[in-house]
């Protein structure tokens, strides 16, 4: 291995890495120090949790956590069931119109629900689901990406496994549960992580649908909390921002390898 060149590149890679993490480090700095230090960098600045207390007092974070948790769990559960059923049909069953149907499903990869906020809001209003958590989740539950990913994974499972299970007397659902779901576990994990991070962070559609504290997820709550008009001071906004991203960020730092592997897995398709 050539020594020089290599080390210049390493230096550049490190510089970029430091630059890339800096904004987040800065948010931590602002949140954990008294507000007068937000613009003064001083290593001896005292640490404090006051900003977090203040943020917690000013916005119902507990309620937002709960809403986001319910939303993310509900979407994921529905996605796993619906996508498994559909993916199996596309991967293993012969039926009239299969290719056309699959094409229609893939259309959602392009026309994501965010683009259709106006019409989907109308639909929700017609079903009386505006300002409900179910309403936020519904457009995402049948996920083309999930169906596509699971279909790819199911196709690699040998048919012999399925036939063996059928001999044992399993029906379609039994085969799915005993053979396909366990074998495709890495794909499920990958999809789950991608889905949870997407919906934890999603903003536009939840903003359109919700208008009360009881339904607002974290992102929407944070946007209201951090709006300049609300006159909250800078360090408190940093603390609130960290509160909102903390669960996902901590999970990411703990299971970094799984996260990256999952995104890789989902990315290769």
């Amino acid at each position, binding site marked *: 291995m*050539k020594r020089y060149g*290599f080390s210049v*590149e*390493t230096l550049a*890679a490190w510089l970029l*890495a*430091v630059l*890339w*993490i800096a*904004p*987040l480090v800065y*948010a931590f700095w*602002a949140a954990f120090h008294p507000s007068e230090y*937000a*613009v003064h960098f001083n290593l001896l600045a005292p640490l404090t949790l006051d900003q977090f207390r203040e943020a917690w007092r000013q916005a119902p974070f507990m309620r937002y956590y709960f809403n986001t948790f319910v939303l993310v769990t509900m979407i994921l559960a529905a996605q796993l*069931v*619906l996508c498994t*059923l*559909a993916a199996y049909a596309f991967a293993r069953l012969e039926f009239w119109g299969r290719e056309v*149907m699959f094409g*229609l*499903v893939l259309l*959602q990869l*392009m*026309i994501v629900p965010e*683009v*259709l*906020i*106006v*019409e*989907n809001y109308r*639909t929700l209003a017609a079903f009386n689901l505006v300002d409900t958590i179910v309403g936020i989740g519904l*457009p995402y*539950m*049948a996920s083309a990406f999930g*169906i596509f990913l699971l279909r790819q994974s199911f196709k690699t499972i040998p048919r012999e496994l399925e036939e063996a299970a059928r001999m044992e007397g399993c029906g379609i659902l039994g085969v799915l549960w005993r053979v396909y779901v366990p074998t495709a576990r890495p794909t499920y994990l990958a999809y789950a992580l991608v889905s949870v*991070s997407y919906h934890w*962070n999603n*903003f*536009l559609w939840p903003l*359109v649908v919700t208008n009360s504290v009881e339904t607002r997820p974290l*992102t929407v709550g*944070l*946007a209201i909390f*951090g709006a*300049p008009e609300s006159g909250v001071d800078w360090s408190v906004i*940093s603390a*609130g*921002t960290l509160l*909102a*991203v903390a669960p996902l*960020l901590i999970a*990411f730092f703990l299971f970094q390898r799984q*996260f*990256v592997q999952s*995104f*890789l897995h989902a*990315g*290769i*398709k």
Partner: protein
Amino acid sequence: MMGIYAWLLLLPASVLLVTFTHYPTVATFIHSLFSNGTVIRPSRFVGLDNYRAVMHDPVFWKVMENTVLFALGTVPASIALALLMAVWVNRRIPGRAFVRLSYFTPTILPMIAVANIWLFFYTPDIGLLDQISAFFGGRGHNWLGDSRTVLWCLIVMTIWKEAGFFMIFYLAALQTHSPELEEAARLEGASRGAFFWRVTFPLLMPTTLFVFINATLNSFKLVDHLFILTKGGPDNASNLLLYYIYENAFSFFDTASAATLTVILLAMLAAMAIVQFTVLDKRVHYR
């Protein structure tokens, strides 16, 4: 027999897909041909009048210009950075885990949180950017309040947020390249630079096209940060198409215009998808 099972399995997903993807797509198109209904005057068929109105709306053209600039500003730069990051992280450099973590972390933050953090960098006088410029003797500048700088501020922030995500696709592709290739090139006396441009880069071409299409599609729907940073201002200098749709529908209550603008956005997405299916080698990613 099998057919019935298949349709039963597809039923739940199909119902939701039709309700929230196919039906609204068609409905948007139809609504774009009708006028806004009021209590006194019900909605009526107006043909292409809504489209004519949009074409004569100077804000629409400003928004389209911004949307294209935003895509041009964010997509190639993030792809280039992503490729660089992937090549670096794919090598055995010391502290690789930290470097990869740092590149990837912005990806898992919500755009709202990113905007909150960056808002402070761009704040006039006390913000980080102005402090740095003051250090070099510059004067305070209202970065987000100046129509010449605002879009660029958003572009820089978005590149920071997105590059790590695209890096993942390159990493995935790089891991399929066999190390013997580089070995052989080195024996032939090829420099690292030559190897990258003659071997790695061409081999990554399908990935680059794939990422390019998806990054462009993605850039059309990235508007969350506008709610925090600029609300599309000043004077629509940072307004983007999807945000303008939101404003028309939920601030101006002009749903006919919103539907018309949505059709235009759908047409842009469709054009990108056609490029994807005709230019891209389908076998690479879709088989």
